[in-house]
């Protein structure tokens, strides 16, 4: 970018836009001006983020996320904004505020669901006798899996043993599967993939095992 363009363009974002400036900017967005989007970001991002943080107590990341989403949505579908009904700033501000509130509601609902699941699970904790029975069944299942050639890989054997013994920790399964050195996100995906594969194998074994017994 040349220095002159840089200064005039960045300077544009510093002052508060007049209604006339906003109309021109909106018209550029409607006309699909390819650089109008950068001007919308420059003009409104900081102002909206500041207000979200001050009035709604948002942290900066959440305010950035919501405002960026709202501006992209506006640029993609500018016809949703009716200039006759108010200022562009008010429209974007309102949309960003709603976005923050919606995200908070979703996060609260998710937290409540997780909490409920945790307490339901705790209430359904198994008795020592049931745990012992499960352990015996798991050992028998492992023995049959090996005898019938389902488990040829030592890592699969370790991982499946953990699953059958009720292990739920991703980290423990990652160690058993030799995936512990992977980055966190990749590790979670890889463990899930292996867990799904082993559960399918278990399902196939279970079906054949019951067919064999009948």
């Amino acid at each position, binding site marked *: 970018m040349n220095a002159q363009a840089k200064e005039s*363009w*960045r300077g544009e974002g510093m002052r508060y836009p007049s209604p006339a400036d906003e109309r021109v900017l909106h018209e550029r967005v409607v006309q*699909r001006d*390819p650089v109008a*989007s*950068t001007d919308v*970001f420059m003009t409104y*991002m900081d102002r909206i983020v500041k207000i979200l943080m001050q009035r709604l107590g948002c942290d900066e990341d959440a305010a950035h996320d919501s405002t960026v989403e709202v501006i*992209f949505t506006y640029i993609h579908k500018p016809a949703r904004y009716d200039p006759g009904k108010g200022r562009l700033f008010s429209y974007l501000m309102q949309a960003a505020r709603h976005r923050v509130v919606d995200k908070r509601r979703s996060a609260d609902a998710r937290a409540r669901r997780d909490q409920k699941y945790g307490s339901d699970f705790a209430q359904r904790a198994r008795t020592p006798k049931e745990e012992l029975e499960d352990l015996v069944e798991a050992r028998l299942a492992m023995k049959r899996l090996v005898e019938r050639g389902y488990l040829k890989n030592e890592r699969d054997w370790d991982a499946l043993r953990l699953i059958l013994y009720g292990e739920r920790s991703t980290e423990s399964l990652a160690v058993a599967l030799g995936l512990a050195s992977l980055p966190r996100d990749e590790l979670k995906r890889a463990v899930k993939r292996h867990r799904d594969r082993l559960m399918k194998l278990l399902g196939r074994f279970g079906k054949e095992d019951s067919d064999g017994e009948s």
Partner: protein
Amino acid sequence: MANPKWLKVAAQRSGQHTWTLGYIFEQYRKHEGKSAEELAADLDCSLEMLDWLSLCRRPDEERFAEHLGMIEKRFAVEPYRLAAVLRRVEVLDVLPASQEGGEAMGEDAFLLAARDHSTDDETSS
């Protein structure tokens, strides 16, 4: 003036919107196996400029030369370099999955598309 804090977030998020240059850049990097630094080198611009460019709407086909000129005027990016990236991704985007691995087919299609587009541009200007 330092770059605003939100620029990175916005540039990253632009990749989710097919109508942005950010989407084009993401696809280009994915298909060509290039880093952001390599893409910036292809466009002969800085990483900071790449982030700003990512926020732009991709040029309309009917006004391709005009829109490319507007981007050039604002960001002083070489239009032919940006056009080459755009055309590359457009070709990759429309190719059926089974043909993407075929280098020769991809190159042929690219050349055909580039010829078509250059004719469009010439006639529209």
